[in-house]
């Protein structure tokens, strides 16, 4: 199986549990297990190759010019880690199936777990540090979901946030470090970087890169002083803790250090930073772990301590130490996962994991006791268990390490840490399982079913096998992985007995000392409680609060909610940028002759400038301003015609009409007069800013127009090929539907989205408080006497077919003459809008059978399908073709596939314009409900929004013959005593209407 597929499988599989959870938790668990199992199988098929020293690769170019390639490789180190991740993941999936309760959303759990698993596998199989960074961030994000899985627990949410903050910050630091590293090495591929040891270590940037990369590794692997997040992440369900903190998340940092060990290690900087940090972490973690009463907290700090141990070994920079580190990674993963799962079983069965409330479980939970004891003894470093072997290797290395000229400090600290480690391991056994059986457990504990203890049992069998026969069961794994770390073939001789060495003496001291510590636990604990110590969470939250206040302050200072201020800043900023750019360069002399100024142009110019000036001068009178801006728009259209752009003129003209209707609809509600709002100073400033900006823009475009293009543009290509390739003589239209069809496609979609946004806003305004405000709204100016003038009504209805015909005509000629989908769409929209204006919304809507949403959808679909059609001809998306068709009785005519695309544009434009304008009219109709004296017979155009009474086709005041009223159950008969409405109903017309109603 390709390494890329192995990394992708968990991500693909992550979809399954989320879907399958509807059919039951067993199916979800099984799908997750099968995915992991399949990936593991695919991985292990490569084992023979990797054991023989080979590297399995899969390379895909992603963004090669950035150096970001999806390159994957399986070498010894990647093999070891991927096996741990997938293998322990499989055990966790089984364990979690029995651990999680019925109330937990199990589907989500498995989805998150697989996402996390995929991210981890991606890290260890990446052969590109940029790709590795992507997966690195994914582990931070997916672990956030896992740690915060119990969303109802505040500790869970806080722990998840803290983990994300710390590891996320580390990730940022690592991105910087990796970029420097890749820059020094000249490649972002790990296999290339690993060959550049001399170049990297001699670079001036080695130390910054090292510190930044270690920032990422230390935060992820919970090294001092970033160790505090790990215990708080224990608020997660135990399967998550067992997975994240034994084999995966926290090992990612170690993996990275091991991965880059060949190029980064071996320098004094590396030794003093990494080994020292590891040593301190090992000691501090172990010390705190002794005094933790919560089983999981104890294990969390022991994890911190063991991670420190491995970091220390990697930091030493010697080959033997690197081998020991790899060996301990294996051992720690096995015994720590088993211990976490044991703690989970105890918690699950006894409903507590507080050591003060436990004890005596040996008799009640014999199976769990055996599993937990074996794992804990391994952690303590007792011979015949695997923890002993690697710990002894560590002590051996420590014994002859000289730190800053002192030969005794490292061995001493290591021995003390080992002693503490033995102490908390013994305490785990003694206070949890030994001692008398108590009668005050929150819940009567007993061994769980096989499904729950199978996973830890499997792991402790490994602990024993490796512990007793290390060369048989682990030697080759260590050789394989350590060989990849060191970069040369390794043959280790793992054995239990090395003779009486300093390391053995230190081990004996540690075990005996651990037992003594346990015996004196009570007074020591009292002393511990009495000494003040910094509380990491409080400090962390204080720092977060300070940062948050600072960011609030900056945000509030920059964003005070004044839009005018943003616009002033934006305008002034653009202006300053323009002036700066202008002052920096030299300008050549004008190369074009100015076109002759004609009288027509002068008249147009005078009208435009006058109209624009008048808009500014009279903008307080909004209706007048609207008329004036319409003049500006018309002159702009004429200007387009004059300057050889017929398509633009047609478009501008039709857009002018719909924009005017739109603004009028808005003005229906908005105040008709703008009040003067700003002070004198501000006013003068605005005028100055606007004038300077206008002047700058004018000068810029003048300078541009007076000079020829510096290079030939692509217009020549478009003009030359418009007919050959696009089959049309109107080059603008061919560019729109063919050469740059993709752009147009996007623009139609954007227009459709804008219309849908308007629709959504309308829907929101038609509900709740704003709907009541609309109903209570009263017009602030006198209404026209005649709502639907008969001249307009007849005129628009007669014009309708003609207008539609014009639309079709413009659409069809578009490819060769001015016109096309955009313009035709606008023309048809105007024809329809005129119907709404003349005959009223309800009348038109009743005759309008297609929803405008559907029209937008159809438009996008038609354009898309036309584009996809090109695939079947083996061409890229939106390649057009054309041919000539001869039908009997007609002239031969041309047919281009671009017409299908243009039809999509047409439908999209019609749908969008009418949906937008329709939204505004719906608001007006809602407002009219309360204002009109006669009960509106259609309140909303949506049938489901009408109440039964509104469904009655006859307004309340309609004069109906009594028998009809009774036959229709019309309870509220006309009340003749009521004061006549504003507009007294004319009996004659109403009767006519009612007859019409009967006929229907």
């Amino acid at each position: 199986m390709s390494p890329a597929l192995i990394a992708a499988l968990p991500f693909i599989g992550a979809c399954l549990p989320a879907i399958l959870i509807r059919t039951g938790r067993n199916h979800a668990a099984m799908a997750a297990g099968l995915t992991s199992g399949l990936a593991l199988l695919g991985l292990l098929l490569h084992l023979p190759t990797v054991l023989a020293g080979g590297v399995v690769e899969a390379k895909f170019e992603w963004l090669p010019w950035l150096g970001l390639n999806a390159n994957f490789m399986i070498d010894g180190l990647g093999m070891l880690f991927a096996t741990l991740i997938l293998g322990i993941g499989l055990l966790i999936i089984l364990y979690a199936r029995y651990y999680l309760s019925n109330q937990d959303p199990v589907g989500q759990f498995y989805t998150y777990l697989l996402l996390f698993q995929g991210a981890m596998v991606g890290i260890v199989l990446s052969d590109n540090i940029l790709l590795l960074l992507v997966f690195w961030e994914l582990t931070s994000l997916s672990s956030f979901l896992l740690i915060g899985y119990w969303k109802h627990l505040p500790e869970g949410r806080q722990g998840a946030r803290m983990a994300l903050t710390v590891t996320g910050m580390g990730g940022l630091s690592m991105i910087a470090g990796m970029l420097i590293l890749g820059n020094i090495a000249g490649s972002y591929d790990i296999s290339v970087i690993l060959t550049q040891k001399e170049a990297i270590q001699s670079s001036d940037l080695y130390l910054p890169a090292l510190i930044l990369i270690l920032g990422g590794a230390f935060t992820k692997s919970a090294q001092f002083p970033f160790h505090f997040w790990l215990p708080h992440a224990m608020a997660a369900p135990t399967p998550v803790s067992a997975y994240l903190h034994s084999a995966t998340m926290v090992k990612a940092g170690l993996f990275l250090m091991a991965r880059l060990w060949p190029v980064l290690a071996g320098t004094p900087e590396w030794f003093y930073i990494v080994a020292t940090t590891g040593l301190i972490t090992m000691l501090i973690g172990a010390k705190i772990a002794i005094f933790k009463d919560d089983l999981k907290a104890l294990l969390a700090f022991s994890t911190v301590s063991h991670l420190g141990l491995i970091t220390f070994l990697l930091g030493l920079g010697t080959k033997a130490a690197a081998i020991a580190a790899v060996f301990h990674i294996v051992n720690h993963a096995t015994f720590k996962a088993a211990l976490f799962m044991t703690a989970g079983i105890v918690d699950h069965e006894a409903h507590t994991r507080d050591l003060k409330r436990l004890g005596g479980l040996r008799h009640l939970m014999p199976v769990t006791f055996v599993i937990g004891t074996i794992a804990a003894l391994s952690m303590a470093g007792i011979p015949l268990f695997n923890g002993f072997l690697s710990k002894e290797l560590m002590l051996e290395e420590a014994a002859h390490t000289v730190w800053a000229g002192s030969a005794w400090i490292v061995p001493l600290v290591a021995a003390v840490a080992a002693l503490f480690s033995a102490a908390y391991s013994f305490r785990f056994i003694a206070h949890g399982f030994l001692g008398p059986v108590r009668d005050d457990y929150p819940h009567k504990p007993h061994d769980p079913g096989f499904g729950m203890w199978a996973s830890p049992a499997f792991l402790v069998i490994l602990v024993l096998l490796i512990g007793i026969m290390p060369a048989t069961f682990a030697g080759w794994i260590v050789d394989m992985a350590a060989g990849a770390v060191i970069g040369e073939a390794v043959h280790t001789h793992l054995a239990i007995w090395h003779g009486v060495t300093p390391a053995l003496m230190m081990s004996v001291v540690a075990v005996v000392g651990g037992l003594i510590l346990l015996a004196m636990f009570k007074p020591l604990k009292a002393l511990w409680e009495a000494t003040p110590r910094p509380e990491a969470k409080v400090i962390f939250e204080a720092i977060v609060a300070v940062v948050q206040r600072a960011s609030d302050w900056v945000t509030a200072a920059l964003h005070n909610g004044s839009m005018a201020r943003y616009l002033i800043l934006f305008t002034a900023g653009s202006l300053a940028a323009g002036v700066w750019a202008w002052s920096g360069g030299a300008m050549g002399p004008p190369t074009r002759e100015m076109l002759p100024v004609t009288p027509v142009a002068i008249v147009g110019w005078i009208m435009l400038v006058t109209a624009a000036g008048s808009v500014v001068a009279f903008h307080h009178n909004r209706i007048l301003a609207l008329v004036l801006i319409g003049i500006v728009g018309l002159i702009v259209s004429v200007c387009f015609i004059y300057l050889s752009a017929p398509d633009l003129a047609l478009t501008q003209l039709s857009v002018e009409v719909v924009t005017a209707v739109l603004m009028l609809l808005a003005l229906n509600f908005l105040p008709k007069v703008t009040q003067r709002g700003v002070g004198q100073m501000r006013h003068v400033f605005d005028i100055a800013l606007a004038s300077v900006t206008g002047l700058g823009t004018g000068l810029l475009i003048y300078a541009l127009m007076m000079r020829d293009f510096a290079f030939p543009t692509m217009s020549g290509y478009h003009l030359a090929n418009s007919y050959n390739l696009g089959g049309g003589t109107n080059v603008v239209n061919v560019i729109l539907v063919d050469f740059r069809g993709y752009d147009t496609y996007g623009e139609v979609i954007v227009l459709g989205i804008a219309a849908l946004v308007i629709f959504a806003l309308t829907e929101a305004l038609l509900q709740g408080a704003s709907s009541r405000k609309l109903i209570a709204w009263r017009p602030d100016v006198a209404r026209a006497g005649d709502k639907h003038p008969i001249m307009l009504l007849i005129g628009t209805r007669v014009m309708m077919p003609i207008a539609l015909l014009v639309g079709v005509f413009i659409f069809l000629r578009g490819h060769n003459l001015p016109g096309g989908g955009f313009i035709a769409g606008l023309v048809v929209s105007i024809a329809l809008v005129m119907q709404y204006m003349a005959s009223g919304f309800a009348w038109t809507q009743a005759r309008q059978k297609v929803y405008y949403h559907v029209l937008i959808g159809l438009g996008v679909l038609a354009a898309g399908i036309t584009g996809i059609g090109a695939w079947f001809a083996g061409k890229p998306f939106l390649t057009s073709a054309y041919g000539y068709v001869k039908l009997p009785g007609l002239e031969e005519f041309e047919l281009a596939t671009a017409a299908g695309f243009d039809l999509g544009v047409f439908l999209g434009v019609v749908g969008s314009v009418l949906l937008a304008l329709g939204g505004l009219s719906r608001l007006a109709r809602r407002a009219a409900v309360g204002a009109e004296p006669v009960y509106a017979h259609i309140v909303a155009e949506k049938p489901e929004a009408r109440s039964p009474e509104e469904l009655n086709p006859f307004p309340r005041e309609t004069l109906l013959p009594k028998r009809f009223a009774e036959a229709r159950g019309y309870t509220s008969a006309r009340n003749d005593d009521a004061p006549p409405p504003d507009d007294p109903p004319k009996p004659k017309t109403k009767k006519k209407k009612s007859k019409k109603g009967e006929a229907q």
Partner: protein
Amino acid sequence: MEALVASAIGVMTAAGIYLILRMRTFPVVLGMAMLSYAVNIFLFATGRLAVNLPPILDHAGAETAGYTDPIPQALVLTAIVISFGMTAVVVMLSLGAFVEAGNDRIDLDEEEADQ
């Protein structure tokens, strides 16, 4: 001719900027419409001005000389339609704000500060 077009663009830009700095929504909408005109002609003018040279080929395989620049026209054509969409959204937003808030101011703070 170029001077006329350039000065017209300048006047419209200035008018647009002045209007968008007003304190009520409707002038801002008008100002954006005015700025759209200015920007559209600006973009169109980057193709250089031409009189009586439409971008319609005389016949198939015609010479490419003697036509106007079609690319800015194609860009501006869609820009006109999109700016209508934008204007519609802004109008709707201002209307919604007016209905919800009962007034059409765009920022309270500065307004109150000025009074």
